[in-house]
């Protein structure tokens, strides 16, 4: 299982703060994202377009490999400061 977190617009559109899901095949973030987008219209909308990804709290790209118990996050470009 991996934990998936959503933030800001992505969280609001997904309608959920976080969820757990079994490790995708292949075990990459790109595969996880595709799997989530197929799961519901809300997740499909939430994960479309310019969405950033973090793996165990570090920014990453779609190639990043996942392991059991990892934490993944999806969020829009940041706007702090």
């Amino acid at each position: 299982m991996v934990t998936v977190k959503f933030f800001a617009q992505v969280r609001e559109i997904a309608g959920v703060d976080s969820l757990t899901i079994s490790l995708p095949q292949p075990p990459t973030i790109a595969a996880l994202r595709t799997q989530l987008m197929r799961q519901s219209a809300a997740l499909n909308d939430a994960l479309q377009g310019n969405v950033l990804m973090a793996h165990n709290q570090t920014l990453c790209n779609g190639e990043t490999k996942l392991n059991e118990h990892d934490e993944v996050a999806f969020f829009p470009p940041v706007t702090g400061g």
Partner: protein
Amino acid sequence: MVFARVQTNDFSQQALYDELCGGAVSQGAGAIVTFTGLVRDFNAQGGIQGIELEYYPGMTESALNALLTQASQRFDIVDAGIIHRVGKLANHAQIVWVGTASQHREQAFLAATFIMDMLKQSVPIWKKEWQGDQATWVVAKTNDDKAAMRWLSENQDNACD
């Protein structure tokens, strides 16, 4: 030495200045630069009534600390700190404070500019603006990307050469 905090409560300019200088003067610091970001009372659409900031507990603090480490490696500074507020903030409230201490003023200015440019592009914090009872997420600015890219495309420590 360096310090980074995410908090809902307000911060004191004097207290943060004193915290930054505490160790810095004994290390030869002669130049202190601070940046403070405030909530503006308008956006491109008109007046706003405050903002609300969301963050990623754990990752946000790590990203701020990583940014201070980067700044310390890249610039000749002896200390630096970042405070970022989250939650609901009224118009004119303090949002963010960055302070740098160096032996040389140019390095203190560059390090503070670098930290703010990179923070706006790489630290997971998101802002929504309130207009009446509607809150709208702020869209990331191309200008902020450009400001950060300037540092990434350089091999030099100095943005101006």
